[in-house]
């Protein structure tokens, strides 16, 4: 993990070490702001292009996998990549290296410049930004996460495997730790720096005969906020309760979706927020006849959808890949589409301010219903833990397909009555949010299928009607 202290000096000048020194990590710690600034300035000193942008990412990734109640693999990796984008007039190109010696930095500049000179002129080229003001937020960084070494990771994993072993269940899972620093600078005086920690812990617990499976997961910037044993208990409970499942007829059902399942769906809207695609007529947000749906009601009026990397609930880098300050963007407010993601070129063309794109976390409004109240108010419906293998079917309606997984239950007359077999659905988050019945309190969820830490997503549990299940699956 990062920040173990000692750091090798320049290649080839590694001094002798004490025999009593603990095993030393083999890689540098993250670049500090000053170090990133110094590397940026060095790269710029080699540049001859009209404009040069330097993007530096340094990362220390650690992970631990466990399977069949024991650690299967674990690892640490360290890398720093430096990308140079050179522009002559309207001709641009970029080149990346992960070596930081002067010769390599000089060479990566030469390569970017040689390529840029060969590029055709880009009619959409935008000049590099000058100095900008960026918000600062400390919520994205946690010393505890940065200090998470192999032994501490093993403790978290043991907290889950011991729950599973005690109940004669089989746990599998993943602890993903990312510690990174990211900077963007250019020869026009712009410089942005952000450092961040992120951790995700997910587990799938199965019965030994493979007839039951339950999942639980959490993600955070601060590892100490994750209760590993509680995740283990939750997944184990679902595994036990999901045995003896029965198949039900596919069709339209009222669903109670746990927050992870809601995030699996709602984050799909992010992929359609591109303003240009909407203006060009190839997006759900295109208005028939031309233009976009901005100002039109697109989902239930209780729904508001926001990205804001400066919000402590969804912390992230306060700038876009080209150095634009990225603040609060309200995509949907009270059901009405308020804005789309505008890059600098398209914003200028459409006469609106650029807003840095669609990144920077995702937060959805909520309500005060509990999942128990949602279940109690449902005559017949399905309770879903999470969704899997979600893939686009039709961009025109943001229609996707996917399946339920690891805890799917039938609700009858206000009660969860039994486990049901998993089902495939063909559904759009837009339709789902138009069929909204109840919402609960928003929470941060692990919403990537792969269990990676990813960007922060904060959503409520919901109840929605007419969710479209199209076939049954025998998969447990």
């Amino acid at each position, binding site marked *: 993990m990062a920040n173990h202290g000692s750091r090798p000096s320049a*290649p080839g000048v590694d001094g002798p070490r004490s025999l009593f020194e603990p095993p030393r990590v083999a890689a540098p710690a993250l670049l500090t702001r000053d170090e990133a600034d110094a590397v940026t300035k060095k790269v710029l000193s080699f540049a001859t292009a009209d404009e040069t942008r330097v993007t530096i990412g340094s990362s220390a*990734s650690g992970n631990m996998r466990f399977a069949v109640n024991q650690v299967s*693999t*674990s690892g640490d*990796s360290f890398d720093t990549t430096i990308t140079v984008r050179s522009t002559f007039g309207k001709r641009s190109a970029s080149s990346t290296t992960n070596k930081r010696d002067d010769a390599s930095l000089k060479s990566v500049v030469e390569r970017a410049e040689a390529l840029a000179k060969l590029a055709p002129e880009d009619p959409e080229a935008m000049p590099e930004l000058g100095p900008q003001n960026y918000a600062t937020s400390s919520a994205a960084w946690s010393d505890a996460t940065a200090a998470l070494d192999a032994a501490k990771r093993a403790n978290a994993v043991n907290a889950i495997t011991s729950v599973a072993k005690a109940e004669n269940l089989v746990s599998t899972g993943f602890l993903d730790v990312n510690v990174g620093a990211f900077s963007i600078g250019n020869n026009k005086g712009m410089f942005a720096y952000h450092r961040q920690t992120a951790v995700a812990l997910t587990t799938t617990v199965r019965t030994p005969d493979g007839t039951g499976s339950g999942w639980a997961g959490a993600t955070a910037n601060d590892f100490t906020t994750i209760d590993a044993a509680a995740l283990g208990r939750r997944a184990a409970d679902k595994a036990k309760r999901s045995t003896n499942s029965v198949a039900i007829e596919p069709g339209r059902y009222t669903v109670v979706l746990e927050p992870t399942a809601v995030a699996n769906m709602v984050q799909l809207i992010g992929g359609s927020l591109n303003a240009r695609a909407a203006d060009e007529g190839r997006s759900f947000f295109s208005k028939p006849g031309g233009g976009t749906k901005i100002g039109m009601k697109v989902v239930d009026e209780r729904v508001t959808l926001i990205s804001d990397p400066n919000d402590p609930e969804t912390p992230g880098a306060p700038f876009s890949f080209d150095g634009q300050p990225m603040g609060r963007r309200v995509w949907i407010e009270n059901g009405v589409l308020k804005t789309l993601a505008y890059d600098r070129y398209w914003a200028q063309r459409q006469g609106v301010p650029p807003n840095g794109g669609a990144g920077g976390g995702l937060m959805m409004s909520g309500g005060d219903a509990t999942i128990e109240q949602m279940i109690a108010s449902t005559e017949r419906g399905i309770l879903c833990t999470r969704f899997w293998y979600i893939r686009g079917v039709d961009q*025109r309606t943001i229609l996707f397909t996917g*399946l339920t997984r690891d805890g799917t239950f039938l609700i009858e007359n206000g009660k969860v009555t039994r486990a049901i077999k998993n089902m495939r659905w063909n559904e759009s988050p837009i*339709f789902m949010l138009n069929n909204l019945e109840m919402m609960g309190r928003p929470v941060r969820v692990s919403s990537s299928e792969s*269990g990676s830490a990813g960007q922060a997503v904060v959503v409520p549990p919901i109840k929605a009607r007419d969710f479209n299940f199209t076939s049954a699956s025998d998969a447990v």
Partner: protein
Amino acid sequence: MSASRREFVKSAAAAAALTAIGPHASALAAVPEIHVPTQRMEDDYAALCLRAIEAARAAGAQYADARIARYRSQGINTRERRVQGLSDNETAGIGVRTLVNGAWGFAATAELTTDAVAAVARSAVAQARANRAALARPVQLAPYGAAQKGTWRSPIKTDPFTIPIADKVAVLLAANDAAMKVRGVRFANSGVNFLREEKWFANTEGSATEQVLFRCTPGMNITAVSADNSDFQTRAANEIAPRGLGYEHFLESDLVGNAPKWADEAVQKLSAKPVEVGRYDLILHPTHLWLTIHESIAHPTELDRALGFEANYAGTSFVAPPEKFLGTYQYGSTMLNIQADRSQTGSLSACGWDDEGVAPEVYDIIKDGMFVDYQTTREQAPYLDWYYKKIGKPTRSHGNSYAQYWSDVQFQRMPNISQLPGERDLTWEDLIAATDRGIAIVGDGSFSIDQQRYNAQFGGQVFYEVRGGKITGMLKDVAYQMRTPEFWKSMDMIGGRSSYFLGGANGDGKGQPAQSNAVSHGCVPSRFRNVNVINTGRSA
């Protein structure tokens, strides 16, 4: 054509002419190489691998392997008359894997110095020691005979990094132009990515290998929009599969020549008839079928899935536990023969050795419809010792270990897994002519399958209605839903060798952290009876 673009095309043509008369005499070809600090970096990297495994052994590892990989990549993306992105990258680093008392450890760094690789090896040993505490079944590695030594290189004709960038850009912009000329087409995107991976490997059992692998990934997407913006349809050029080849594959893909046909199909899709839901016989073109094979045969026959190791993400398998399925389970029709083969020329997973130094085998996974073997690594093969003894085969890895990058730990990844052609040399046209009521699907589209690989749904690029042995029109909004065993048992007619096509993808995901594998799947046109088809069109 704008002045700048005209100049560019002119200079590209000049560059091409220069390339033809001399070995890259053009100044346009003079993209500098990344600085090389020593004269013979290859020797240094081989030596650094040895240094790392020595350090791991000294720190207490019973087994260690070290893998240095250096990646050179070049990517160009265009839309209409504009180059959106042009990049040329080179990165390198080392990953060291260690085994201490049956527990794995792994560590990786970009610092390629004698001291840094030794330190990272010690770090991997420390990892293994930390993991050893809760060990239930210690890792055992299957033997693989004599230490492996040598070099291997993808069989490319032209190194893409020696070709002027302007030539590549000119092809892409010309392809976009050709598509945009078709009435009704509003957008055209094209691009190409070239990769060269140089890989040095050594382990404590005396193996030391060097490999140079290439990949070429051309692509194109064409979108037609209806006059009133009420509908849009995209045709992706799935016939252009990525391959383990060089620049020649980009040229042979003939984007410029094919673009008008794809563009025309995008426009036709706007007015295609929405499919009526129901059961149909499906005739699947190999540009489509490779993905169905990937999802419903290649993934469920990965042994780590069957043993439960991937339960938290990729999932498990319906073909499990092994003792209930191996050698006894009828996976599909007797026409179904599936083989794993990393030796196919131009395939994405072709290599001399896998990422734990094993020379890969060609082996059967499904023989005459019967399931006969899983994909394995050295760690996994011993789990099937009982089976290999029964059938009289040695217990050894099939050579299916892979890591996407130097900083990722290697694990079981699928090799090329391909359908064998039928004995009769039937063609796509023969299958259509023999079908009374069906849908013919070309190209892969939307895809999704459950975590045990039973229930899948696939779309496509172009859908044709087949009536009385003839294509009678184009359909849209088609997807089929299937249950894997029934689907493969319903296969009743397949094409012969002349209709074989090698599809594939760079983005085969598995593992945590998720890693992308590059894999090819060869197959022939095949017919499936009575498959459930849904209509995916909904109004917003």
